[in-house]
């Protein structure tokens, strides 16, 4: 049986279950898989965390280095977010340059970090126009069992919350916490027929008819959204999912706060 045919059978099964309000792994429609965060996973990074959502595992490492500001923002630090969807993490990924899926993942996480003001870029200026802190947020996917965006965001927010700016190493003062001002969380939903489920597995992502990611902050703002995949959402859908996203977001922010 070819992979394509197997995928089709699985998709039909997932959609049939959804019609009855069920999911493959027995979860409720608005139930996330188990979440686990291991902060400080990598000693070579200035901040890091391993985030697990079910079997999906993303390791985020933050490196903070001295560099030059962009000419148009001479008083601000620089933030770079990257997601590596390495072929170790999924039978679907092949070696090669970043795929558009990897680019989308990193850009959606990046947008939430920026829009939520998670990193105080103004506070990362050392000498205007000359020397600023450059903050690299690298998300390394280890096991892709669905919902990469949320896992990468979770790993990034957790890693940033633990990041120390290594001032001593670069001889510009004392080490200090990066101290994220805000903690963005992304919550992703997919449409399966008439149901919309949170935290999709890989099988649900393949089967889905539209994906919507909503990033929230702790002050009650939506800070980023991304509709992906073939499919559509009504304005009513969006408002309803926004409410669900706030609930999930607040719960996960609590988790990070307690690390």
């Amino acid at each position, binding site marked *: 049986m070819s992979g*394509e045919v197997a995928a089709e059978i699985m998709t039909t099964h997932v959609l049939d279950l959804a019609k009855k309000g069920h999911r493959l792994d027995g979860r409720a429609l608005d139930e996330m898989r188990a979440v686990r965060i291991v902060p400080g996973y990598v000693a070579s990074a200035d901040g890091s965390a391993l985030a697990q959502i079910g079997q999906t595992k993303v390791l985020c490492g933050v490196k903070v280095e001295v560099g030059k500001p962009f000419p*148009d*923002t*001479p*008083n*601000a630090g620089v933030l770079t977010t990257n997601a590596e969807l390495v072929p170790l993490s999924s039978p679907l990924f092949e070696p090669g340059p970043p795929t*558009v899926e990897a*680019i*989308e993942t*990193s*850009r959606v996480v990046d*947008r939430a970090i*920026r*829009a939520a003001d998670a990193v105080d*870029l*103004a506070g990362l*200026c050392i000498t205007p126009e000359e020397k600023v802190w450059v903050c690299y947020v690298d998300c390394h996917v280890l096991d892709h069992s669905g919902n990469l965006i949320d896992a990468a965001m979770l790993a990034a927010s957790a890693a940033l919350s633990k990041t120390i700016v290594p001032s001593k190493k670069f001889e510009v003062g004392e080490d200090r916490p990066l101290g994220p001002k805000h903690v963005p969380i992304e919550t992703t939903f997919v449409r399966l027929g008439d149901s919309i489920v949170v935290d999709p597995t890989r099988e649900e992502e393949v089967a889905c008819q*539209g994906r*919507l990611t909503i990033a929230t*902050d702790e002050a*009650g*703002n*939506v*800070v*980023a*959204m*991304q*509709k*992906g*995949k*073939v*499919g*559509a*959402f*009504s*304005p009513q*859908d*969006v*408002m309803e999912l*926004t*409410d669900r996203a*706030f609930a999930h977001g607040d719960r996960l922010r609590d988790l990070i706060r307690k690390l």
Partner: protein
Amino acid sequence: MGSIGAKDVPQLLDANGRRIDGRGLEDLRPLRIEAGPLAQADGSAFVEWGDNKVMAAVYGPREVHPRHLQQATKAVVQCRYNMAAFSVDERKRPGLDRRSQEISKVIAEAFESVIFVEEFPRTSIDVYIEVLQANAGTRCAGVVAASVALADAGIPMVDLVPAVAVGKVAGTVVLDLKKEEDNYGEADMPMAMVPRSGRMVLLQMEGHMTRDELKRSLDLGVIGCKKIYEVQKRALRDRYAVAGPKEGEVASSEVPA
């Protein structure tokens, strides 16, 4: 949204609720659509929208390149959104940067949501969008143009797809951001809608919006899309009113905002 460390933030809304270019909160910039301007493409459209100039072309259904992307039961929809080097203030290096690749992806997914792809198994429908002059809202202008180009190419779709960006400026939700509003505003939300179903096939957002502002933005976006839909339909009508399909002659449709 990129205002950190910027110096001279302009006043985006005056005391009378007038915007930097004199528009009201719910006004669109002037929009002109020209169907069929290109000879080589199977379908094409040119959009002038405020200070944006965007060309779209469609090729297909045709053979899939690269071959391994071919699908046994449906057409694949491929999109390439590209900015000309001279379309922006500081010259842009030619080629697709990461932003362009992401936009290409979400636009391809948007159109695959409305095209009857099952009718053309093992083929590709290729949508090309070239931004020639950019002033905020280029991805929406690209969707508006590509949608007309698809119709011009005779590709069967559920409906045309209008698109517009809504945003927040000086604390207020406004329709169809221009460059200064995009740069110094508080939120930007591009969306593309299928008028027939009222559902959105493209939706992105970045910035800060409360629940209520988001609701207001969605409502305003729907209003904007409906206006744009009319211009799209007129452009196609004009195209076929003037002449039969193709061959150099050009039809265009304008509406004041």
